[in-house]
């Protein structure tokens, strides 16, 4: 008999999914409800549905939430805070001021003011200029904003000035949240600065989602620990998520990949998550999502935090046949032919092809030919997408998840086999529920031959990554370094490498 249960929730653009898992990660209950505009209602409905199946909801000790709310806020320029954007680097970096390449409407929404003050570091850790503390005070005092974003040159390797600015801001204007770039992104000033600014703009959104979750839990009388899913498929505590909301932005695809790995028992696979409007394809490597090598654009802004490498194609259950890429979306229950509607969708096409039994009405005969053509075109699009993400490797299985997984054929060229695990329709929520907590750090260390300094710096980085994982909720006893990569840097006086360390571990046991 299970003593403690976990609830995983995924708030998507169309549906809110929820699952309950026991101590042994067995799925006890699942539910799918429409996402409500205010999030809370959909959350509460999904929670209610999933808890209704349990003998005693008080056995739930933890809730893990994955949400695309922050992503949508940026895409729709909605509920974003106004940010004072401060860069430490003058006289360097002035050829490209902050937010230079932002879309005008997003900049108008977010920017309370920008400044480049004297400061920043050289690659070797010495100061470009001493931090101009007076200029910092003047800027923050004269720039009323909901939050401040601070980005210093080479701060991922030398963070002291950014930390000092956070102190100054606290002393000067009190309790305004501060987003420090070295805690968010890696080397590459503009992309890291963009990420830090987006993070600062999202503080209010994070508060809203957290409040929605708390309300939904309180309404059920649940007192539980809550966590948020982040881009790499790992978790962070609510307090941590409140400080780094931008890290939730890629959590949807990451959760579906992790959930697919768990449900299928396969660690190396291609995953296709078929939704209502699109199919997201990603690759599992050792049970984790393959990450994107390129800078990732969000709402028209280049950022450099790590995101799952996802290929999206316009194919979903609601995709309108003959009018792709349009989708009937959440209206599928009224509009699709199999539900008695008049719009031919990919769901109708798949049902007509005998791939699933959905709805209440047979597809009218006059549509047969067009629906069959649509299925052939969809199969080709999937095969092409699989080929593109597989990078020439055709021996891996394809794990089909998501509400529209039945659209996929029994055999897909480029994949060894198609696996359809049980509970595939709520793989996202399962992925959130089983996630580990993690921490990462990026810095510069001497290349091999750097001797004891090098060894010490690498040890420091490992410790810092582990400490960040613990801060995110991991059990200090079982945190492990799961990734350590070095990229050589050219044209430096002493050979050096960019070091990236990631630590992850299961969540600490609930207190009591």
């Amino acid at each position, binding site marked *: 008999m299970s003593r403690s249960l976990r609830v995983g929730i995924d708030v998507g653009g169309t549906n809110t999914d929820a699952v309950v898992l026991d101590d042994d990660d067995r799925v006890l209950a699942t539910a799918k409800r429409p996402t409500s505009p205010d999030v809370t209602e959909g959350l509460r409905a999904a929670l209610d549905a999933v808890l209704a199946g349990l003998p005693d909801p008080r056995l739930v000790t933890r809730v893990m939430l994955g949400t695309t709310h922050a992503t949508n806020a940026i895409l729709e320029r909605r509920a974003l805070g106004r940010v004072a954007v401060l860069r430490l*680097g003058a006289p*360097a970096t002035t050829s490209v001021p902050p937010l230079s390449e932002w879309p005008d409407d997003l900049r108008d929404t977010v920017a309370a003011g920008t400044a480049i003050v004297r400061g920043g570091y050289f690659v070797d850790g010495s100061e470009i200029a001493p931090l101009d503390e007076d200029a910092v005070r003047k800027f923050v005092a004269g720039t009323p904003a909901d939050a401040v974003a601070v980005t210093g040159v080479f701060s991922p390797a030398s963070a002291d000035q950014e930390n000092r600015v956070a102190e100054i801001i606290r002393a000067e204007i009190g309790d305004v949240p501060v987003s420090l770039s070295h805690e968010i992104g890696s*080397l590459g000033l503009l992309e890291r600065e963009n990420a830090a600014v987006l993070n600062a703009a999202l503080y209010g959104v994070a508060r809203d989602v957290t409040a929605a979750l708390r309300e939904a839990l309180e309404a059920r009388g649940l007192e539980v620990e809550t966590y948020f899913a982040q881009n790499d498929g790992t978790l962070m505590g609510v307090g941590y998520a409140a400080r780094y909301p931008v890290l939730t932005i890629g959590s949807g695809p990451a959760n579906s990949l992790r959930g697919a790995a768990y449900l299928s028992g396969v660690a190396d696979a291609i995953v296709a998550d078929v939704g209502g409007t699109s199919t997201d394809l990603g690759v599992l490597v050792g049970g984790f999502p393959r990450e994107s090598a390129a800078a990732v654009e969000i709402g028209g802004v280049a950022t450099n935090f790590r995101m799952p490498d996802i290929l999206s194609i316009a194919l979903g259950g609601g995709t309108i046949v003959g009018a792709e890429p349009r989708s009937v979306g959440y209206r599928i229950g009224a509009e699709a032919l199999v539900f008695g509607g008049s719009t031919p969708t990919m769901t109708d096409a798949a049902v007509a092809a005998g791939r699933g039994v959905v709805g209440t009405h047979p597809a009218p005969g006059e549509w047969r030919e067009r629906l069959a053509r649509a299925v052939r075109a969809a199969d080709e699009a999937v095969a092409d997408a699989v080929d593109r993400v597989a990078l020439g490797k055709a021996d891996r299985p394809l794990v089909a998840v998501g509400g529209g997984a039945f659209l996929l054929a029994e055999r897909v060229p480029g994949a060894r086999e198609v696996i359809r695990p049980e509970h595939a329709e709520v793989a996202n929520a399962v992925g959130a529920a089983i996630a580990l907590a993690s921490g990462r750090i990026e810095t510069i260390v001497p290349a091999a031959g750097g001797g004891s300094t090098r060894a010490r710096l690498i040890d420091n980085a490992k410790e810092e990554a582990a400490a960040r994982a613990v801060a995110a909720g991991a059990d200090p006893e079982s945190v492990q370094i799961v990734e350590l990569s070095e990229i050589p840097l050219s044209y430096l006086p002493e050979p050096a490498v960019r070091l990236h360390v990631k630590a992850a571990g299961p969540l600490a046991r609930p207190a009591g």
Partner: protein
Amino acid sequence: MKAPRMQARITMEEVAALARGCAVLGTGGGGDVRPGAIAARRAIREHGEVPLVSLDDLPADALVLPLSGIGAPTVSHEMIHGEDEPVRIAEEIERIFGRPPAAVMSSEIGGGNGVAPVAWAARLGLPLLDADAMGRAFPEVQMVSMYVAGIPANLVVMADVAGNVVTIRPIDGLWSERIARAVCVAAGSSALMADYVLTARECAGAVIEGTVSRAIAVGRATEGAADPLAALTAELGAVRLLTGKLADLDRRTTGGFVRGTATVEGTGDDRGRTLTLEIQNENLVALEDGRVRAMVPDLITVVDTQTATAVQTEALRYGQRVTVLAWPCDPLWRTPKGLETAGPRAFGYDLDYLPVEKIA
């Protein structure tokens, strides 16, 4: 051959095409084109469009100022240039020559150094000369057309992000590389540099003309193309060496350079074949079954097979789907002095140079 033509201007819109073209001409090196493109757009917005002139448009005694960023690409991606560095260099040049420069020239059209001069020219209110000193990217300061043309390298002016200006009077190109590199390291591994300040008269035969227009044309070739790879290959007049996926990558840092080997395994029609790239910042030699298929100073670029965008050596990742293209360099590099300066032996390969069109 110089044909008189209408004076062109580099607009905000053209910067993107220029950046794409410069990335291709960078042959894997030359640094990221994005910061330069952002700086160029901003400078055009603030100071106006930049006239693109040919040597014929300049008086014979007009001073041409070849500018380039020098340093580690990773550093300049983080420690972006200040906007006054070109101004400090121009002021120093005016002090030395008694007159201001009349045009800016890119020292290296490949990579970030091909795009950033648009920003520098805009900041100085000067036209940009439709020429450069490499026609591609090379890793060392003396690997420029002026050196091959026998023009003495007797002046280098550098400005760093902190505000320092350094003037070097080297005795030759090799010393200019050695001292400029040391200054660059002291300045935090990134600086702006002018060397070989020339009159328009001296430029004739000592610079590679038309390369800015060429980069823009290369960048435009893929715009809206149904088959970007075919469009790019045709525009470059390139040989497609192999299409495949990156199967192995061995990188190490020696003597300040990233050296390494990238192995591309053929896919599709090229299945069963393997191409090996020798890298020193740029792609230098392409080998198949021990046979050289292209070598420096001819140009070898790795592009994304889908989009035909250039992939820098620092961005190469296991599993990427790429196509390797090679095409002929400017004839200047195929002269004896050109090959001595930037031929395979200049990079430590015991190979006799053979043109790509004969061996690919």
